[in-house]
């Protein structure tokens, strides 16, 4: 589903290279965890996958279902089914959460040639998804993410993911700032989306989240490259021994 080939990328307008020859393949149905120390390029990778123009791909390619997505803008990638749950969801005053959800869902449907949702159908879907994630309906009456607590913001991200039904879900440090109860709710939300035709990329610092979202593969990112790939036991190894051994072996 996702194939990253020898990717090099830098911060636009500078020469700071952050991704330095990264290779990664994630198959449909797979949950891949990406771990790595601070500054290894994890969040940058998530932004590049989503199409943020603050970063520039200098060489290599990103294939999604066999096609390069480098030329697509974020909206086009989203319409094709790529979803990034942000580490820091953005507060947008003046944009009502419900309006945002409706416009986003209908924009994607339109791009795929599907009919727009009727208001009752839309309301029903939101209500259902919100109750699974234990989201207070009053929260949805507020402007997008404005005044949401850290946990509420993360839950709102997963709500969007559930409603937009993407094919490739990228979770960027979704566990940060969550207490254990919120973490379980969010993990349940993600697990509910696991399916043979959907892939999930979980970016995280810690093993903790992976106890609840159990990965099929674990990849260690360091200095913009995947330096080791393994199964879920690799995450436990990292938790026990830290990154030093692996980094030392790769150096």
């Amino acid at each position: 589903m996702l194939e990253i080939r020898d990717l090099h990328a830098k911060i636009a307008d500078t020469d700071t290279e952050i991704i330095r020859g990264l290779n990664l393949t994630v198959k449909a149905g797979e949950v891949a965890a990406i771990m790595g120390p601070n500054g290894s390029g994890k969040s940058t990778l998530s932004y590049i996958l989503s199409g943020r123009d603050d970063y520039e791909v200098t060489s290599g390619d990103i294939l999604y279902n066999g096609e390069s997505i480098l030329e697509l803008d974020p909206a086009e990638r989203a319409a094709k089914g790529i979803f990034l749950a942000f580490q820091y969801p953005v507060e947008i005053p003046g944009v009502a959460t419900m309006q945002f959800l409706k416009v986003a869902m209908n924009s994607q449907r339109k791009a795929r040639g599907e009919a727009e949702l009727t208001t009752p159908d839309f309301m029903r879907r939101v209500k259902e998804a919100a109750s699974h994630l234990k989201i207070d309906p009053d929260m949805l009456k507020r402007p997008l993410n404005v005044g949401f607590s850290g946990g509420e913001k993360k839950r709102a991200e997963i709500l969007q993911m559930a409603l937009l039904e993407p094919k490739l879900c990228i979770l960027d440090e979704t566990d940060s700032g969550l207490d254990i109860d919120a973490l379980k709710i969010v993990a349940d939300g993600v697990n509910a989306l696991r399916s043979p035709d959907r892939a999930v990329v979980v970016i995280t610092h810690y093993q903790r989240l992976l106890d609840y979202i159990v990965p099929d593969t674990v990849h260690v990112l360091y200095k913009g490259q995947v330096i080791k790939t393994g199964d879920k036991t690799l995450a436990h190894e990292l938790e026990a021994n830290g990154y030093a051994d692996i980094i030392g072996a790769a150096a």
Partner: protein
Amino acid sequence: MNVTQLNRQTAAEAQLLEAYQTALSELPGDGAVMVARDRLLHALKTQGLPTRRIESWHYTDLRTLLKAVPTAATELAPAVDPVVAGSTVLALSGGKPTGSAAVDGVAVSGFAGQLLSGEAASGLAERGADDAIGRINGAFVRDGYVLDVPAGADLADVIELQANQAGGQSHSRFPVRFGAGSKAVIMERHRAVTENAAFVSSVSDLVLEDGAEITWIILQQQGAGDTHLGQIKIVLNADAKLKLYVINAGGKLVRQEIHVVTAGGGADLTLRGVNLLGGDSHTDVTLTLGHDVPNTTSTEIIRNVVFDRAKGVFQGQIRVAQDAQRTDARMACNTLLLSDEAEFSVKPELEIFADDVQCAHGATVADIDKVHLYYLMARGIPKKEARALLVNAFVAEIVEELEEEALVEALEGVIAGWLEKHG
């Protein structure tokens, strides 16, 4: 010398003077009114239209910007449904009332009556030497509506003063008195029904008696070739509260002046402005606000969205008199410049003579927040729609402060409609 003087007269100035001669026989007024008109016209003739050398017109050089004054006789401009469903409509066509002039619980009459009786004469005087709008309107005004809202009245329905025009000239006036403790919502709406060029002047003259709580909305929707010169003069007596919304969503050359004086403690002004500017238009909102007595408050927030080659101006002058202690005045002007050729000039002016006051002003100019745009796009909203959503949010915030839901919805509809056409 005389020859030079004549050569200096612009085409628009000549057309204005000519229009007066043509209209003279039809302009309503008793002797005192006609004397007042002649005096105003004489001032216009000798001083000409204001230029950038007049301080209050520095960013809107009317003499240069006003290219022509249409004189064509106007056809009837039919009324349309009000902005807020269920409003009582007082319609005008080309500055003259049409249809019925009745509002439950309010004394309504035509302004022409006050001109004919001479009652209007003193009110026609200009505010000062730079009062070009007062001069033009005073010389040419034909009609309008006079409203008297009785003390204690609580009007359930919005009153919409719907000034329609189909090109040519319209000059109207709206003297309105709100009795003590009265409550009302008034929509002063100016709209073009054709693409014929128009030259419009409109003066509203408001007195809020003690404790009146009024929402007044000026919704300007003139055509892309029209000149609109608006002025609202306001006296706030003790504990009177006015929410004044000025929404500019049309016109080619627009100046809306707001002149407020506080005459009693506890008076409060909430001014909110939304300027939606596009094309080659020039739009100027100019405020003078006198905190003249102790214990009065005001907040002013102006939000501007500027597309294409449009130019905007906001001048906000707040004067705090020497004995006006415990004044609290806060002014902000925020602009989204959405094209490289768009311009907005902001001139805040605080003149404070008292020492125990809170006064602040701030101005920001920005483009759309890139991170906001990225976030919306990352959810599949195409760039154009995402931008429109953010622009709308920027101004909708102001409108959402209104308590009346029907009003918020109606104004949001106006804004969304404008953005759809121009965004």
